[in-house]
């Protein structure tokens, strides 16, 4: 590396990096996940401490102030955030990380500007990359946050000529970069590049719907890793390079997993907005078909009876439960049913909700005993022998069309086969489609009873209903 940090620092970096690796590894298994997180945190401490020993670090006061402010804000945010707001929280933090990388590159640029050093080709290139990735991560993540937090509409926004405009901007960025490589010390051009990067982030996320934000965030997470790596190349610092690469790789893998779980391709997630026309129409027809079918509707009293007198009940939570924050009432309902000797299980679909493990996190928050949660493959065989399957704000993950309707967008996605149960009760507010926008024939089956209303209210009523049995 160009600057010769003393061996000691280098070695502590090596230790820290190893801790990160072990941490990520342990994060992979439930039994060790927590320790893994701690390991990674320790690694971070070591890395920071070692860096502070670096001779090039002088004005400690300011730095410590900065660290204190940051830690304080971080702690507060971490304490305040609700479990259901996790995705946007990660998105936000992620954006800050990206912002930091961008600032580092800009700061370094200004340092070189001031100094008499000549700026080498490769350091210019790495700086441009660092700015680009960092900038996209920053604005992209913030926009994703805004969409998930519903500060702005989660709907995909497309404006005319979007593609040509993106294209033009990309060209502009390229030209600018080439120019900067030519005259590396031109602040104007540099700032223009920064600006373009920021705009890029917005343009990248705008056309993507709120439901896909988890995917986007995880992708941006991987970007923020790459941004850190880029910063590492700017400063010739192995620690940054390694950690960045780790995060970059992990983020990409996770993104793929999420896409696969939703059985869509990443490109489809990112660019479907541009081709929405078609799919929108098709789901539209699906809706119209719906109208001429009839659904059986019941009220909470009937529902409470069906549940209370059942031998076995399988609860299928979905995105709706998350939106309605109904997990606590659901847990209460389960308790009441068990008091009556009903055998209650939860069926967790891998992509129920809007991010992997979404349901597990919520139910765990409501202290649902872990052994009661069953994965799709374990519960599906049991559903036939189940008296009542209680579907709470889930839709796509229980849509039988996925099994047979080859031209349904969710065809092929493994589902929870609640239609095999003796009876199915579906709690949702109306007949609206779910995330995938397709109609659900389950609702029209004779064995299916619809229980309309917000998940929270309905379930609470069910609880009181069951209590009176």
């Amino acid at each position, binding site marked *: 590396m160009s600057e010769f940090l003393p061996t000691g620092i280098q070695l502590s970096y090596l230790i820290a990096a190893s801790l990160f690796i072990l*941490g*990520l590894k342990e*994060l*992979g298994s*439930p039994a060790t996940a*927590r320790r893994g*997180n701690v390991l*990674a*945190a320790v*690694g*971070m401490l070591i890395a920071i401490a070692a860096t502070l020993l*670096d001779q*090039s670090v*002088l004005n400690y006061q*300011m730095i410590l*102030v*900065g*660290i204190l402010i940051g830690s304080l*804000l*971080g702690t507060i945010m*971490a304490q305040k*955030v609700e479990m259901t707001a*996790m995705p946007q929280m*990660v998105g936000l*933090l992620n954006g*800050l*990380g990206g*912002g*930091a*990388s961008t600032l*580092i590159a800009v*700061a*370094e640029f200004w*340092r070189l500007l001031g100094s008499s050093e000549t700026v080498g080709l490769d350091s210019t290139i*790495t700086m441009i990359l660092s700015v680009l990735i960092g900038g996209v991560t920053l604005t992209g993540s913030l926009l994703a946050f805004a969409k998930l937090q519903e500060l702005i509409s989660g709907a995909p926004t497309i404006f005319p000529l979007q593609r040509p405009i993106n294209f033009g901007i990309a060209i502009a960025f390229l030209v600018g970069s080439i120019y900067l490589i030519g005259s590396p010390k031109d602040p104007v051009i540099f700032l223009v590049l920064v600006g373009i990067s920021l705009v890029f982030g917005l343009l990248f996320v705008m056309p993507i719907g709120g439901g896909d934000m988890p995917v986007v965030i995880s992708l941006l*997470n991987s970007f923020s890793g790459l941004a*850190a790596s880029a910063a*590492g190349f700017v400063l*010739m*610092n*192995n620690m*940054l390079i*390694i*950690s*960045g*690469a*780790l*995060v970059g*790789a*992990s983020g990409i*893998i*996770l993104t793929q*997993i999420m896409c696969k779980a939703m059985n869509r391709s990443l490109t489809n997630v990112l660019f479907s907005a541009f081709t929405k026309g078609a799919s929108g129409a098709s789901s539209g027809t699906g809706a119209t078909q719906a109208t001429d079918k009839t659904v059986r509707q019941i009220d909470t009293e009937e529902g409470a009876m069906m549940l209370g007198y059942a031998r076995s009940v399988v609860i299928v939570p979905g995105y709706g439960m998350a939106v309605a924050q109904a997990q606590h009432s659901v847990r209460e309902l389960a308790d009441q049913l068990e008091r009556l000797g009903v055998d209650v299980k939860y069926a967790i679909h891998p992509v129920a909700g809007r*991010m992997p*493990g979404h349901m597990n*996190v919520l139910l765990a*928050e409501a202290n649902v*005993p*872990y*052994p009661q949660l069953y994965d799709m493959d374990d519960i599906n065989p049991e559903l036939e022998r189940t008296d009542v399957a209680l579907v709470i704000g889930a839709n796509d993950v229980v849509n039988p069309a996925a099994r047979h309707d080859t031209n349904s967008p969710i065809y092929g996605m493994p589902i929870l086969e609640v239609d095999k149960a003796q009876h199915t009760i579906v709690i949702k507010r109306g007949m609206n489609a779910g995330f995938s926008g397709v109609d659900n024939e389950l609702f029209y089956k004779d064995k299916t009873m619809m229980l309309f209303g917000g998940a929270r209210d309905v379930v609470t009523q069910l609880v009181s209903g069951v209590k009176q049995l």
Partner: protein
Amino acid sequence: MSEGLVTGLVVFVLASFVGFEVINKVPPTLHTPLMSGSNAISGIAVIGALLVSGAQGWSITVILGLIAIILATINVVGGFLVTDRMLQMFKKKEVKA
């Protein structure tokens, strides 16, 4: 292309391989904690911020660096705490595992 850059590239590639191999064995329920955990790690950018803002006195560089420090620290601290909060809820899972 400088010697350091090449070495950096080697390190980068190796680390990426590690990342891929380590990750692709994670059960779905842990994806969210993993996402925020690795996100916290990406806050390592903080040490970059430390290095650039280390210079004596007040220059644009230092100021930008300090802002970077704050942002990155939020990312780090917030990330690890949030992750821990999520994982606390999985503790029952440890019984099973």
